[in-house]
């Protein structure tokens, strides 16, 4: 059997619903749909409408009665998904959490091995699928040495080697830079054209997939299906569009409205400056970026842009006082340092949080406590600020970032957008004058995106300095300010507003 003859799978949901164990309400229910073999479907809906849960169910990895309660049923070619293991292949959002083995070739072979495919056929499939996804690296290349886009194409190849008749993609491009997004999307299209497999893809950024799919299904927030039809009809219908916009889905030809206008403030005196700066990831590792010159005045925004792996994140960590400069200097002006010394890398944690705030790409890295409320109080408490001072400020922040109803929740159980809002709020709780953010809009829905932009614009208008590492052109444009383009080991200021 060759890839060209992969038999596409039909998928059916009949009054289907799922309640996670320990949760009072159903994550999703009342889903009735039939997907024909070979159809290409884009699945949309607000966060929390159960898109990922539905994909997991189709993949047969939702678990048994211990992990939740199911109503209705899901069938692949008329049988339960668990009985059709290997017919559906699932690719998840985070490339790092789905790589199993150390070498590229072994990783692709893993799924086929589990399906008891004979070894010579496995290696034929490994070469074929790596070719299909356009991943041209030696089979013994280390899987940890790949870029984000390469890892995601590897995950795709690893699933394709199982010859699935149903390809399930759960926000496969949310964590990738624009080039990675195109690479993965094009690889999927190439494969579908050849194998004619059925496709179901979940994605916030509709424009990436709208031209590729032939059907759009929108799940309602309160259960059931809101809209179902060809992309042009569903996305062109004003009623559906407004529902999708309210749900934070990125619809082509629409940008979320922003509350505040861009700050017209003229930048004030300098807060932080880098002169002849070289940055390195570790103390003894090689310098990834050299000769950076920049100045961050009060009331300014700066976007650091450039390809993956060019050293943007390392530069941000160094500017934020978390890594020591390899060469050159990062100097805090007296107005920022307030007696703590000129080199932020030497500041103690308690002083650092009151001067420079860092928001990491993965919010989970920064969560330290068991509830949202403790998380918000953590910074001010470790800086030994009086509760009378930070209490009202935290309340206002929670209100502003819609976290008030979540104060007693565990940070790790929040949705992606909520985690991002919390990570920004925790940093703002100590009122730092400089804010450094690494990819703040990655994987965010349009609602959270607009909130972030509004909030950051407000901070700039207040006179703070906001530095963002980003691939998001809309974000850079909306925030305004300077752009530092990083490429091949050096950086240059290309524009300033």
């Amino acid at each position: 059997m060759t890839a060209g003859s992969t038999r596409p799978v039909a998928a059916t949901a009949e009054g289907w619903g799922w309640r996670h164990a320990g949760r009072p309400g159903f994550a999703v229910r009342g889903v009735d749909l039939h997907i024909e073999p070979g159809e290409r479907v884009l699945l949309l809906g607000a966060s929390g409408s159960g898109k990922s849960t539905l994909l997991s169910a189709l993949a047969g990895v939702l678990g048994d009665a211990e992990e939740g309660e199911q109503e209705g049923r899901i069938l692949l070619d008329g049988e339960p998904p668990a009985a059709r293991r290997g017919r559906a292949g699932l690719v998840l959002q985070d490339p790092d959490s789905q790589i199993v083995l150390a070498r590229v070739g072994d990783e692709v072979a893993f799924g086929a091995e589990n399906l008891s495919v004979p070894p010579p056929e496995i290696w034929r499939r490994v070469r074929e699928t790596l070719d299909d996804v356009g991943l041209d690296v030696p089979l013994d290349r280390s899987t940890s040495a790949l870029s984000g886009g390469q890892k995601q194409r590897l995950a795709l190849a690893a699933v394709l080697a199982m010859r699935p008749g149903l390809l399930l993609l759960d926000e496969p491009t949310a964590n990738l830079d624009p080039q990675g997004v195109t690479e993965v999307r094009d690889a999927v299209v190439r494969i579908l054209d050849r194998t004619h497999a059925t496709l179901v893809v979940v994605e916030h950024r509709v424009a990436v997939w709208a031209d590729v799919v032939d059907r759009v299904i929108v799940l309602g927030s309160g259960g059931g299906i809101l809209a179902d039809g060809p992309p042009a009809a569903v996305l062109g219908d004003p009623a559906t569009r407004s529902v999708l916009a309210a749900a934070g889905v990125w619809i082509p030809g629409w940008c979320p409205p922003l509350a505040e206008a861009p700050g017209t403030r003229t930048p004030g005196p300098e807060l932080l400056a880098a002169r002849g700066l070289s940055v390195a990831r570790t103390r003894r590792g090689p310098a990834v970026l050299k000769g950076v010159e920049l100045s961050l005045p009060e009331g300014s925004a700066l976007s650091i842009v450039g390809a993956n792996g060019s050293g943007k994140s390392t530069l941000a960590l160094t500017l934020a006082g978390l890594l020591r400069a390899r060469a050159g200097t990062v100097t805090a002006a007296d107005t920022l340092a307030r007696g703590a010394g000129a080199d932020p890398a030497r500041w103690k944690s308690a002083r650092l949080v009151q001067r420079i705030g860092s928001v990491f790409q993965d919010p989970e890295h920064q969560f330290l406590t068991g509830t949202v409320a403790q998380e918000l109080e953590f910074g001010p408490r470790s800086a030994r600020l009086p509760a009378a001072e930070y209490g009202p400020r935290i309340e206002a922040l929670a209100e502003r970032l819609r976290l008030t109803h979540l104060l007693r929740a565990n940070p790790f159980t929040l949705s992606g957008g909520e985690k991002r809002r919390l990570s920004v709020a925790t940093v703002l709780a100590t009122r730092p004058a400089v804010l450094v953010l690494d990819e703040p809009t990655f994987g965010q829905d349009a609602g959270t995106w607009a909130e972030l932009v509004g909030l950051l614009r407000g901070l700039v208008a207040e006179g703070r300095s906001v530095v963002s590492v980003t691939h998001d052109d809309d974000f850079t444009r909306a925030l305004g300010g300077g752009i530092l383009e990083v490429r091949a080991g050096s950086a240059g200021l290309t524009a300033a507003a």
Partner: protein
Amino acid sequence: MSADLSAPVLSGAVLMRANPLSKLFAAGIVTVAVILSIDWVSAAVVLSGELLLMPLLGVSPRKLLLRIWPLVAAAAIGGYGTALLAEKTGRVLLDAGPFLFTEGSVGAGIAVALRGLAVALPGIFLLLSTDPTDLADALGQKLRLPHRFVLSALTAMRLAGLLLDQWRMLGLARHARGAGPDGSPIARVRDFLGQSFGLLVQAIRRATRLAVAMEARGFGAGPRTWARESTFSAVDLWVATAGAALAAAAVTAAVAAGTWNLLLT
């Protein structure tokens, strides 16, 4: 000990081409021979043999020393302690108050130091010349250990290798949140414990997600095939024979020299 101690040196050296099981056998039999008797002759024979075989590893002595110096230091300290405290028999070599060394005690010290190194080196050789994936293949196919167990252990090993990076990132993130290791030793210990707990939480979350990803790829569903066939070749015969021969030579030499001192009697 640093994490790269466990990373194999993939250089295409002779030992790399041997099946992990033959290396395991050779290392095992040599270790048993050294452990059975505390005497300097058998330990010296094994250690010389191991040093002679080192070129097969494809690692320069300098690089090897950089990786195993803690072991060398530990062996030297162990030998020194034994020489200081062992039964004082034979001619006095040095008498400086509490520091009394005799021929008998120094002999025992040398035996302990040599034996420590001789026991440690086969394990190091095995680690440096073996890819974990190949070891898992051999255990699953040749020893027929359950594949769920073997592959889960292999995946866990890969995740453990990534912990160092995560630890570093966690340290930066905590510093950024105001939880850095400032101030008193007690605060430092508390910070270390906090960071360790954070690492544990992340490791568990990552392992859970990976388990789902593995299940989605059909892992554990039923019988499986192995894409990489684990095979034995002439090299394995040599490796196993060399191990057995070295063990036999050590025992014979010690018995002939009259130093054989069986631990169990």
